[in-house]
């Protein structure tokens, strides 16, 4: 990248921007409207994966219950913007609120687990995720808060001023359905997440996280406040999850505890690891691939029909089989992910040392 001359870089950026802005219309024309929806979901997963990347990739804290923060954000939005509690707060209040509540939960999880490391941390976070899900499932008695397994319906769509994203709008000869409008909101948030992640990576905080990841004891003896830094990582990661959760609730209009299973936490973790842990671009790639891959595998059912005249294997089972196989094969052939992080800090250090000699 750095080798490119400035005008080319500008041209590349302009091309990417135009492509991203035109994406929902191009995708609709090429693959149909269902794929616009999948693109929207992929953008949400980019945010989630980037959030988890802060915790797992930067700070090296293995979190297997990350989806809980997504759930907290989603329920926070759903409860305060639906007929469930008969409260309808505006989106611009709820989004930061959801982020804050999720961050609080992140600290709640982080504080008791500070002394744990590695796999003990993994199992406690996993337990935390399950606890949140069971609570959401059961908080319909004695007082009905979350409506239990039925979930919350009729959640308000995003509305900024008088502009509701659920309605169809026409602008400059293009038709914006809800899916298109949400795309642009999600795109904005995803791009913001990418920028925040990149800025964090190179910041003093980001370097402190990497130091903790590599050797906590050494980091502490270099004067890094490991307690605060780890809590900050949890809170930051949770914030991303909370925001994505709020957006998800308004996008779907319906949420239930079923959307927040352990398998979803694992899915996000797979995105991070498969894409390339610690590398923002890799994580984004992982999120897009792992959202698109299971959807693309849906087409296997009709293909069987066409090639063999009948459906041998239930397509949804086959899809999961292939997904499992893909995970194994990917890790066997590229164990550090598709697009691994470069060790820039280490490299520049040695270069400097060579220069000094």
């Amino acid at each position: 990248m750095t080798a490119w001359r400035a005008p080319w870089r500008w041209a590349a950026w302009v091309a990417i921007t135009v492509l991203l802005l035109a994406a929902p219309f191009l995708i609709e024309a090429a693959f149909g409207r269902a794929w616009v929806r999948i693109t929207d979901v992929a953008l949400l997963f980019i945010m989630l994966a980037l959030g988890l990347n802060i915790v797992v990739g930067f700070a090296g804290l293995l979190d297997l219950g990350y989806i809980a923060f997504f759930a907290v954000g989603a329920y926070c939005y759903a409860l305060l913007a639906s007929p469930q509690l008969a409260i309808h707060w505006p989106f611009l209040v709820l989004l930061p609120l959801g982020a804050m509540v999720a961050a609080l939960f992140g600290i709640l999880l982080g504080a008791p687990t500070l002394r744990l490391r590695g796999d003990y941390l993994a199992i406690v976070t996993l337990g935390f995720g399950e606890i949140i899900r069971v609570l959401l499932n059961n908080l319909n008695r004695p007082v009905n808060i979350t409506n239990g397994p039925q979930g919350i319906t009729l959640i308000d769509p995003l509305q900024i001023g008088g502009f509701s994203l659920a309605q169809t709008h026409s602008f400059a000869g293009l038709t914006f359905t809800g899916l298109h409008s949400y795309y642009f909101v999600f795109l904005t948030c995803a791009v913001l997440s990418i920028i925040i992640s990149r800025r964090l990576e190179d910041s003093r905080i980001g370097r402190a996280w990497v130091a903790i990841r590599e050797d906590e004891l050494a980091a502490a003896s270099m004067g890094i406040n490991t307690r605060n830094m780890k809590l900050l990582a949890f809170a930051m990661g949770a914030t991303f999850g909370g925001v994505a959760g709020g957006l998800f609730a308004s996008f779907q209009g319906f949420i239930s505890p079923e959307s927040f299973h352990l398998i979803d936490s694992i899915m996000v973790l797979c995105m991070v690891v498969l894409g390339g842990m610690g590398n923002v671009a890799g994580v984004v790639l992982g999120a897009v691939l792992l959202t698109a891959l299971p959807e693309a595998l849906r087409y296997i059912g009709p293909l069987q029909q066409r090639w063999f005249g009948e459906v041998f294997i239930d397509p949804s089972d086959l899809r999961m089989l292939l997904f499992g196989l893909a995970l194994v094969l990917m890790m066997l052939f590229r164990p550090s992910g598709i697009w691994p992080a470069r060790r820039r800090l280490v490299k520049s250090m040695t270069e400097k040392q060579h220069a000094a000699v």
Partner: protein
Amino acid sequence: METFVQQLINGLVLGSIYALVALGYTMVYGILGLINFAHGDITMIGALVSLTLIQLLAAAGIPAPVILLLAGGGAVMVCAILGLSIERIAYRPLRRAPRLAPLITAIGVSILLQYSAALIWGKQYIALPKIIEPAQLTIFGAQLTSLQAAIFLLACTIMAGLLWFIKTSRMGRAMRATEQNPDVAGLMGVNTNTIIAFTFVLGSAIGAIAGLMIVLYYGLGHYFMGFMLGLKAFTAAVLGGIGNVGGAVLGGLLLGVIESLASGYIGDLTGGVLGSNYRDIFAFLVLVLVLVLRPAGLLGHQGGDRV
């Protein structure tokens, strides 16, 4: 009092099954430092294989003890081969890979096993044909079936046998050496690859027996049953101190008892507000508490890091 004894009995039986599955997690973790996510699903395969064998053999009119022996043997064989091949194909190439890579393959293998089972056995619950009629015993007013007693005793025998095997046999000594330091063990003439493969076979075989026990105990099998079971068993292993074989036994029994007692009493204690649907939470609540107070588990090595 009756409730207490009853829940204690139920908890110990359930806990002994947890403990058997936990052994598989803890042995692999001790040697490789890998959370073998697929272990719960290996147990599930063991359960479903033995279920199918029981169905087939019962239809052929073979006496019950022979059926159980054959079903157990078949499940052990299948799971041992499965464990061996998974280690060889999915984990061994990743021994020197970044720490999270084998975890992802383990998750991939787990998904593969689940949906292979869904293809072979279908997604519905499979019922066990009635081949044994357990006798009822009454102890302190609580019911104990001969099946429960048999499960508990067999589990304890296996665990004691395993502990003895690891403690005294040549192979067990090699396992302990590999656990402490694979490289040095290799220099001392231990074939670490064989030891690791053997550990997988041993863990999977014990898991298969646990699978048979669950099928007999609940009378049901399902392609997804390994997930929650694996989660609980792993929790048990961490509770006892992961990597510690005795700890897995203690953690399993403890987890079973806590779960049974808590779900038996929570309704009364809270005046019916909270029901036994909170059952799955207790396991994790206890786990979080234990780890906060004793971060390396009950029997784990506490001290700090060597620098």
